[in-house]
């Protein structure tokens, strides 16, 4: 089945926030934000801006009837700065005007005086200054301190990974519309409608039921709209509340890039110990996470770094710690992978370094240490499948590692200015929110009396085709044509208290809730059909919109069945609730069973380096991926390709640059580059690992959003290997992204 939005996307008819027809009287908002990264606000003069024709109001913290607080996990972030600013781009005020351009003119007229304070942009410096978001977290297994003695080889090193701008094509935005009795409806481009609702209620000083959030779709999210869509939605609501007018705010790209957080940069130290036969016996890592100026989701991201710090490997003795370093950058936030890629990068660097130092192949160490069924992850859960080993073996069999490596070597011996590099990147990724309480969802399924079906869930459609999967579930359970089914907007008045669509779990959680609701409806309808057809006690089923009695078709078709059930006063609406079974996690011990299941896979990446110019191309990425039993291979392959490309972008050209004053330099698409069509790997092959699927995956089809992002990490190591084959004296530094600048400097560095 094709993405249900495909046709309207292609005709430009799909509606995003800025496309909603404007209600007359609509006002336009614009944030006035800090130009400095850390300062005391001495004085602000709004008078010139307020006097500009068409400016309605400028809202500040003083206009907040409720609480000036948007922090979720930790309440440490004001909506508007009060006396101090903590990052450049921090909102100070919200200009409301009759047009966007008037608001922009007004912004230039605001005068502000700061008294600058010390600016920290580097997590190591924050660590030294004891500037933290909260206490560090540590996961351990075995006995790390005594394990070193048993190691034949011990290596230490450092690995850095950079931030990443989400660059959803649709920028952040919201449109709030007041109605009677103080109620406000907010159209928001958010992955977390309940979070927007809750925080808006908190700031506006009203009950949650006064605030309705409605989301049709997002033009991309990637985690950037999980928590950080809230700010703008709350501001428009605040202005609507005060002025009783609709208020829209659709951020322009520069404002979006400047004011929003990104993927967390990490600076990490590792120590790894191996036995003579290359078993990793001990691994220790300290991750210095650049959290930015407020907590946002950093504590949850910290957790996932720790959960994935050993990637696909079984290591009996580990100790890994994340320090949440508070700096004067915009609060960093969720981004596809959610801390896991940062953790995986470090263990892969440690293995890479070990192999080079010992003089064996990286792949030998990787393969020897893959986690097997019933072996334990550092957090106490045991692998319940052999996916790591199976995907490695399947990739080796399908793509023939030996042959690929030999071809690369041959090419390198024959070419002077061009060098190829190759790497293998195994991936193991846990599925579920690591915060157990979030793993539940609801679906509201209405069958209308004409037989059409409308489904509301908490899932947000942002291109990943979760709505298509939900439609597939309903069509399959009810056994009717998908044409009869409509997936409604995501709306907090229809489905409440939702978890954000994140952690790759949107289809699993909301799909399972839909499945439950549809199963209940199916049961009621077949029971009714038995009575109606006077066939009680017989086996009644619905197949392809026809009622069957003991496997024989009756004359009763779907439309008639529904109509008659409705006349007989059968409930033909249903609310399904699903909570992932078996999962639990005890934070006091840092042990438990946090994941419903794991997704496994393997990617072989080949790159070609131009050693004159320091530029590179990605020849191929050959993947074996564990989809379970994919319920929609076209859509799932699209997720792999898209995530892979983002992962490659993260370790190659995507470089976030702040200056020492905490000002974002890569603040536009002209200075922050993401992959274009020419940069896509020439060849991407995706093989589905044979599997029976997992019972906790929707229709046995495993979650696919985040795991393949990590395949991109392989590109970093392939590039390093290519540099090494040109410059034998190159001492590899693990400092992602491998921009053309770093590559050229490495090619010619003789130190």
């Amino acid at each position, binding site marked *: 089945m094709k993405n249900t939005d495909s046709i309207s996307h292609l005709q430009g008819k799909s509606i995003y926030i800025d496309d909603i027809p404007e209600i007359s009287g609509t006002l336009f908002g614009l944030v006035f934000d800090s130009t400095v990264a850390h300062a005391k606000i001495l004085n602000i003069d709004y008078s010139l801006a307020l006097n500009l024709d068409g400016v309605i109001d400028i809202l500040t913290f003083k206009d907040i009837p409720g609480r000036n607080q948007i922090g979720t996990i930790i309440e440490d972030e004001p909506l508007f700065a009060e006396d101090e600013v903590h990052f450049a781009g921090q909102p100070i005020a919200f200009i409301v005007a009759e047009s966007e351009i008037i608001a922009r003119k007004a912004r230039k007229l605001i005068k502000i005086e700061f008294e600058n304070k010390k600016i920290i942009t580097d997590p190591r410096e924050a660590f030294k200054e004891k500037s933290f978001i909260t206490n560090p977290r540590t996961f351990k297994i075995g006995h790390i301190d005594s394990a070193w003695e048993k190691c034949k080889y011990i290596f230490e090193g450092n690995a850095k990974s950079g931030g990443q701008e989400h660059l959803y094509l649709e920028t952040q935005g919201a449109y709030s519309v007041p109605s009677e009795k103080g109620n406000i409806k907010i159209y928001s481009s958010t992955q977390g409608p309940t979070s927007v609702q809750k925080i808006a209620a908190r700031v506006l000083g009203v009950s949650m039921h006064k605030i309705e959030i409605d989301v049709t779709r997002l033009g991309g999210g990637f985690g950037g709209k999980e928590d950080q869509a809230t700010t703008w939605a709350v501001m428009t609501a605040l202005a609507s509340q005060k002025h009783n007018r609709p208020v829209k705010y659709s951020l322009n790209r520069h404002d979006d890039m400047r004011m929003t957080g990104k993927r967390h940069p990490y600076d990490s130290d590792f120590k790894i110990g191996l036995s003579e036969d290359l078993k990793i016996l001990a691994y220790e890592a300290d991750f210095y996470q650049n959290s930015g100026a407020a907590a946002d989701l950093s504590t949850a991201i910290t957790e996932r770094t720790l959960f994935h710090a050993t990637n696909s490997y079984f290591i009996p003795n580990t100790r890994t710690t994340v320090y949440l370093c508070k700096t004067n950058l915009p609060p960093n936030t969720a981004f596809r992978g959610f801390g896991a890629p940062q953790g995986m990068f470090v263990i892969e660097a440690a293995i890479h370094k070990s192999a080079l130092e010992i003089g064996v192949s990286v792949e030998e160490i990787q393969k020897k240490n893959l986690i097997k069924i019933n072996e334990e992850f550092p957090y106490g859960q045991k692998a319940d499948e052999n996916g790591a080993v199976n995907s490695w073996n399947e990739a080796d069999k399908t793509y023939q590692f030996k042959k690929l490596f030999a071809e690369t070597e041959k090419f390198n011996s024959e070419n002077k200015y061009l060098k190829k590099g190759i790497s293998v990147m195994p991936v193991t990724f846990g599925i579920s929110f690591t915060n157990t309480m979030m793993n539940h969802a609801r679906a509201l399924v209405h069958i209308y009396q004409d037989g059409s079906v409308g489904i509301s869930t908490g899932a947000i459609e942002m291109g990943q085709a979760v709505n298509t999967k939900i439609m597939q579930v309903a069509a399959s359970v009810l056994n009717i044509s998908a044409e009869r089914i409509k997936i409604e907007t995501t709306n907090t008045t229809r489905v409440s208290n939702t978890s954000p669509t994140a952690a790759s779990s949107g289809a699993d959680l909301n799909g399972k809730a839909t499945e439950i609701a549809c199963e209940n409806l199916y049961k009621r309808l077949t029971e009714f059909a038995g009575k109606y057809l006077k066939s009680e006690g017989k086996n009644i089923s619905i197949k392809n919109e026809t009622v069957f009695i003991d496997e024989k078709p009756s004359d009763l078709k779907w439309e008639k069945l529904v109509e008659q059930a409705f006349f007989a006063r059968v409930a033909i609406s249903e609310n399904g609730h699903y909570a992932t079974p078996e999962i639990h996690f005890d934070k006091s011990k840092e042990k438990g069973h946090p994941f419903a299941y794991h997704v496994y896979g393997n990617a072989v990446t080949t790159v070609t380096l131009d050693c004159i110019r320091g530029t590179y191309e990605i020849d191929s990425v050959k993947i074996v991926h564990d989809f379970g039993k994919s319920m929609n291979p076209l859509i799932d392959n699209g997720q792999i390709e898209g995530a892979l490309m983002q992962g490659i972008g993260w370790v190659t050209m995507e470089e976030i640059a702040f200056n020492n004053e905490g000002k974002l330099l890569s603040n536009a698409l002209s200075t922050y580059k993401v*992959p274009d069509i020419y940069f896509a790997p020439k060849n991407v092959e995706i093989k589905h690992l044979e599997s029976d699927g997992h019972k906790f995956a929707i229709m046995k089809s495993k979650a696919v959003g985040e795991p393949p992002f990590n395949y991109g990490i392989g590109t970093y190591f392939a590039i390093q290997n290519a540099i090494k084959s040109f410059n034998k004296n190159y001492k590899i530094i693990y400092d992602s992204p491998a921009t053309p600048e770093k590559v050229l400097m490495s090619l010619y560095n003789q130190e």
Partner: protein
Amino acid sequence: MIEFILNNKLIKTKVGEGISLADFIRYNQNLKGTKIGCREGDCGACTVLSGELLNGKIYYKSITSCITPLKFAHGKHIVTIEGINKENLTEIQHHFHEHSATQCGFCTPGFVMSLTGFSINTKKTDFSQGINAVAGNICRCTGYKSIEKAIFDISEALKSKPETDEIAWLIKNNYLPEYFTEIPEKLKQIKPLENIEGKIVGGGTDLYVQNADGMSEKSVRFILPADKTDKIRIYENKIIIHSSTTVSEIINSEIIKNILPHLKKQLLLISSEQIRNTATIAGNFVNASPIGDITIIFLALNSKIKINSDNSSREIYLKDFYKGYKILDLKETEFIENLSFEIPENGFKFNFEKVSKRKYLDIASVNTAISLSINENIIKEIHVSGGGIAPIPMYFSKTSEFLKGKIINKEIVMSASEILLSEVSPISDVRGSSDYKKLLLKQLFLAHFIELFSIEI
């Protein structure tokens, strides 16, 4: 009054001629299929088609409407996604649908428009040209592989397109709606605009990135040639290129193809199809970016520019045009009329090198161009230029002087590279550290000789 045809509708508007075409389309005409993703021509979500009559025939090209002044549309046919939609999917849309080449959908109308432009324009379609058509379209969801597959099918299907009467064929084969046949006649009814007062704009592709708000309240003045079909011409021993010539017009010029056969490939490293379709050479010169690709190329061709004011005219070398960072030898009342360079002699060689974070649609970290004439292995004439390593687009006079009269070999090239580095003083910025830029300049200088003379370094 600005007058043009938007899709199938005649527009007559007194809205400010300096506002961006994208704003007019979305907020004045309420056509919301054209998306705005960056407002600097770097994402392609706002791509529309612009059709223009030349000698009675209509030519379409894709443009980024977010950095195009509304006045540009005057007398043209502007086509948005709404203007190509039919009841069922068009061929382009159909292939995207088949390959699931849309995910969040926000970039999708831009891709569809770029490829619709490709379907109209391209004479002999092949896959690589199809890819080139969307080099200015960013998708953050798909990873492009599904889009490549769709483009492959589209370029295959277009192979049966005839060389004449393309529009009729495209209508018949479900690429365009039927109203396209009536457009040329309708365009003929629109009179040219008086074009005297106002801020001089080339293509606007940088001006609108820097100051779209400011431009929205201004009048716009284009410097246009008497005959739009004669922008590039040969006069005596010179090639003369009118200031309003776009990069695409240079790429497609038969005159240029004959003299600089590799220039097309090199020019494709500059920005994107959409921007090359509107960005002009004079715009690049006066923008005075120390890293302007077009400027660097014409510096190495030892070009001259003719500068006019309303009552006088003078000619100077392009290399003398730059006095300091963004400081030009150009008075308020003056504008560039044309550029000229001498038709090279036999033994002429030219190369352009550019490295940026992303190979396409990116601003260079360093770029450099070289032109030289060789006679019996001796360099008779040579001009070397480079960008990103000084406050102005550099003409390397010492390096050029040194190499003149020399025989090309590795030692001479290495010595020249030392002189080259002595001429520059790069600063560290978002495009690279000073050390990187020096190393890169040297490497790209060497690359000229590897490319042109297969010298082993």
